[in-house]
Every structure is written in structure tokens, then in C-alpha cells.
């Protein structure tokens, strides 16, 4: 084909990129077709794995998802055991973590975006946030063990757990909130400042209201991730056998992922079924949170138009 074509140099792949006279492999239409086919295959496998991951757990745990499972405490008999202490513990943890991390995280983001100059302090904070985001979650557990459980004397309580998860979630919350604050047009701030508003008045009345949907979306994702964390709570020394619903922030606690891990590490298959059921509950909860984030995002995007 190349030999007969007079517009040889215009045909794709036959120009400066090819050294030989023959059409190089990468320029061959078949190669491209094969690549696309291959890429689609990999994406399909990835999506199928995602479905298998969720379906496997849900199918394994389905039979144990009775009313009794939600209202019973752990038991030596797998079929009597339930997740009452675990789901109440997880809910407490979630609410406490939000209470602690949300104001601090958004406050830090506001400072960095609205107040911070590009000075050495801001640079240092940014470097620390970027590094903290990459610190393995077990390390946070060790920090919590030494600082909250031992030094501050909070013992292995909900408060210690929530403080640890809050520290873990902070970098993600700060980064998401900063992103949301950055999407607020500059004119909003300039307009308010020109009318004589102070920096804080501008932030409170103009910038934050516009940024709130974005902040909410990012924070929901951060908290849904925090609530699924197992490793830091284990390192903290969260108990695996708790037969009480927590009634204060100083109560000992267990959480859904910890309960699931505890059942999973036993050899009996009946307990693996319990673990699957507990994980299904956790996943359902997280998917609900993620949907909430998606709904908020969608609503916000339509309002912007």
C-alpha cells in the first residue's frame, strides 16, 4: 500500500517517527485495535472484580442478616452472636470523629486558603499535610496509643478512638476543603472586601456558604473512609469482646471492622459467615454515605449553572 500511495508522508505513522520504511508496529491500525481491546478487557476485569468483591461478601453474609444479628452482643456461638456493640460503637465513632475533625479541618483549610500568606509557616503546614496523607494508618494507631490512651489517660475509650480517627481524616478533610474553597470565584471576596467587610466577615458570609457543598462532599468521603479503618483501632487496643452499648465518650468500645476482623481470624467457618454479614453492613453504610456525597455534588453542580 505504501509503495503505491503518493501521499505517503501524510499517512499516519510513516513520518519522522518511523525509522524503517516498513510501517512501524505502533503505527499499525491492528496494534491500536489490539491495545483498545486489551485496555477494555482490563477495565472489565477490574469492574468484575469489584462486583465479585461485594457480591462475595454479601452472598456469604446474607443468611446471617436477621434482626437478631443487629440486636445481639458477641457470643461464643456464631449463630447467636450479633453486632449491637459494634454498630453502635461505629456510629458513636463516626459522630465523635466528625465533631472533632470537621471544625479543625475546615478551619485549617480556611486559614491556608483565605488568610495564609505564602510564607514559611504555610509552606511547612502544606509539607506536613502532604506527608501525613501518606502515613500508614497503623502509625496513627501507635500515635493514639501513646498519646491518647497512655499519656492523656483516656484509656481504650471511644474518645481515644475518635481522636485517632480524626487525626487520620484531617489531611483528607483539609485537602478537600481547600479544593472547595478554591472554586469560589475571586470576585465574591473582592466584592465583600470592597464593601468594607473584614476578612472573617467575607469568609463567613460570602466564601463559606458557596463552598459548603464541596466541603460536605469531600468530608463525607473522608469520614466514610475513617469509619472503615481497622488497623489504627486495633493498634490502639480497641477491645474485640464488648457486651455493652457505649453510653459516654469514655466507654470501652468495639467497631464493625474490628468485630469483623475478630470473627475472620477464627478458624470456624460459621464465624466467617458472621464476619461477612458484619462487612456487608459496613459496606452498605459506606455506600449510603458515598451516595449522599454524589447527590450533594449533583445538586450543587446543577445549581451552579
Amino acid at each position, binding site marked *: 500500500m505504501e509503495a503505491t500511495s503518493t501521499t505517503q*508522508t501524510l499517512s499516519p505513522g510513516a513520518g519522522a517517527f518511523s525509522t524503517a520504511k516498513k510501517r512501524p508496529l505502533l503505527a499499525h491500525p491492528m496494534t491500536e485495535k489490539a*491495545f483498545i481491546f486489551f485496555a477494555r478487557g*482490563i477495565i472489565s476485569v477490574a469492574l468484575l472484580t469489584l462486583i465479585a468483591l461485594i457480591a462475595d461478601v454479601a452472598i456469604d453474609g446474607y443468611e446471617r442478616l436477621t434482626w437478631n444479628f443487629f440486636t445481639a452482643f458477641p457470643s461464643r456461638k456464631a449463630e447467636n452472636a450479633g453486632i449491637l456493640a459494634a454498630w453502635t460503637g461505629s456510629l458513636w465513632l463516626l459522630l465523635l470523629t466528625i465533631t472533632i475533625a470537621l471544625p479543625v479541618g475546615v478551619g485549617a483549610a480556611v486559614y491556608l486558603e483565605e488568610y495564609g500568606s505564602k510564607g514559611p509557616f504555610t509552606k*511547612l503546614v502544606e509539607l506536613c499535610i502532604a506527608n501525613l496523607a501518606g502515613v500508614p494508618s497503623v502509625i496513627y494507631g501507635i500515635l493514639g496509643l501513646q498519646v491518647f490512651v497512655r499519656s492523656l489517660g483516656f484509656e481504650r475509650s471511644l474518645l481515644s478512638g475518635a481522636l485517632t480517627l480524626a487525626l487520620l481524616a*484531617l489531611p483528607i478533610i483539609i485537602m478537600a476543603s481547600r479544593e472547595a474553597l478554591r472554586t469560589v470565584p475571586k470576585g465574591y471576596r473582592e466584592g465583600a472586601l470592597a464593601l468594607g467587610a*473584614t476578612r472573617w466577615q467575607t469568609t463567613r458570609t460570602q466564601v463559606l456558604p458557596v463552598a459548603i457543598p464541596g466541603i460536605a462532599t469531600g468530608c463525607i468521603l473522608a469520614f466514610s473512609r475513617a469509619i472503615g479503618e481497622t488497623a489504627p483501632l486495633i493498634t490502639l487496643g480497641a477491645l474485640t469482646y464488648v457486651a455493652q452499648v457505649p453510653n459516654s465518650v469514655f466507654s470501652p468500645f468495639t467497631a464493625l471492622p474490628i468485630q469483623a*476482623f475478630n470473627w475472620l481470624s477464627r478458624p470456624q467457618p460459621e464465624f466467617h459467615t458472621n464476619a461477612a454479614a458484619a462487612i456487608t453492613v459496613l459496606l452498605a453504610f459506606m455506600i449510603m454515605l458515598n451516595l449522599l456525597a454524589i447527590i450533594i455534588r449533583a445538586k450543587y453542580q446543577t445549581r451552579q449553572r
Partner: protein
Amino acid sequence: MSISGKSTWRPGEFVIEWILRVCSSLSVVTTLGIIAVLSIESVLFFEEVPVSRLLFDTEWTPLFLDKHFGIWPLLAGTLLTSAIALSFAVPAGLIIAIYVSEYASEGVRKVLKPVLELLAGIPTIVYGYFALLFITPMLQVIFPEMGSFNALSAGIAMGIMILPMMASLSEDAIYTVPRSLREGAYALGASKLQMIFGAVLPGAVGGITAAMILSAARAVGETMIVAIAAGQQPLLHLNPLQPVETMTAYIVQVSLGDTPHGTLEYHTLFAVAMMLFLLTMTLNIISLAIRERSKRMYR
């Protein structure tokens, strides 16, 4: 009435600015806190166990009567599971990133991005469950001699876990390559694949390398998957069909046991965590530096 805001003394504004400043300095405090906690307790460990015993011993048995403190079994376990995970996640993630940014329609991209986000948000205990009770039984069909705890299935599950992050970060890197580079390649007569491999990927190599390193850091620090599926036997080998213990899995093992506070066993927790922290921190800093440099390239 004053025009300049600075001449008016407003105590409220001042207080709020300081509160916000304290909020943002908390990340510095956390970083210092981690370093302080790990250093103080590790020093207590190294007072009793010299570094040479860590480096020149091939056994790790601090919980036994006959104590050995060779770090290599834990390091080998960590590297083995991470290497298995990366050998799956890096090529697959890169190909997904290329496809999504260069071939996929806007609709496909709009669906795939949230799915990747959702995948990244799945708790790691789910992957651990999947590795132990789905991947391992499947692999046992192929390798009947394989035990229920092994490095391979933990590594595969970890690869699935890292894949969304690898794909998403690589896609970001590919996206930042300027249009002019692509058009330049087309103008020279390149085909689309030639353009991708000749112009886009070399242009995005910094971002992709950063993504790989960040994925590696994530794999090294991953805890629950390996604690559940890889076993808790610190054996020095690189056989994926055998059980291994990673640094993170050892931390979990000690945390689950009732190790009395202040003992040497307790201090090993911090020494191992210190090494884990240094390893991931180094990887993170390298990745950050590469990303900064490649960002500056197209500014």
C-alpha cells in the same frame, strides 16, 4: 471612618485568625508527635538491642523465649507482598489511565472516575476477606500445596486495592501533558499510539513515576489485607506460595496480644513502626519532589 482595615483594631478578627492558625498548625503538631513518639520508644528499644543485631540476624522472634531481632524476615515479607501487588497494579493502572484519557468517551470517563473513587474507598478489611476466602481457595485449585495463608493472594488483593489510586494518579499525570505536545507529534506524522508512547507518556513520566512510588508507599503501609491473608510467620524467603509476615502485620500481632507496657516486646512495636514510617516517608517525599518538578515543567 478608616479605609485601611489594618488601622482598626478588631479583637474578634484577631482571635479568629489565631484560632484558624492553631487549626492549621495541628498538622505540624501531629507530624512532630508521630516522630517524637516513634523516636522516644525506639531509643528505648535500641538501648537494649544494638542495631547490629537487627541487621546481622536472619530471624525475627521477639515474642519467643529465645529472642532474635533480625529485621530481614519482616522486610522481605513487606517487599514480597508489595512487589506482587505492584506488578499487577502498575501496568493495569497505566493502561486504564491511557485508555480513559486518550480513548474513552466523555460518558465512559464520567462513569469510571466515580467508580474508581468508590473502589478506593472500600475498607481494606473487605479486601482481606476477599483474599482469604475467595482468592486463596481459587489459587489452591492451581497450587494444591499452597496453605491458607500465603503472600500471593494477599499481594493480589493488595494490587486490586492499589489499582484505582495508580490509575487515577496516572490519569492526572497524562492529563497535564499540554495539547501542543500531542499536536506536535501528530504534525510529525505520528499515529495515535505513536503519539501516546512517543509524546504523552514521556511527557507524563514524572507524574507516572510519582504515582508508582505513592502506590508503593501505600502497599508497604497496608495492614489489614496482609494481617488477614498473608499469615503471621516471620520467615525469611521470597516464595509467594508460603506465608510471610510484614512489618504492619507484626504491629497488629503485637497489638492483639497482651504485651505488658514498657517491656522489650512492647518496644519492638515502636522500632518496627519507626522503620515503617521512615520507609513510607522516604517514598512519599521522593514522590512529592518528582511531582513538584514535573508540575514546574509545564508551567
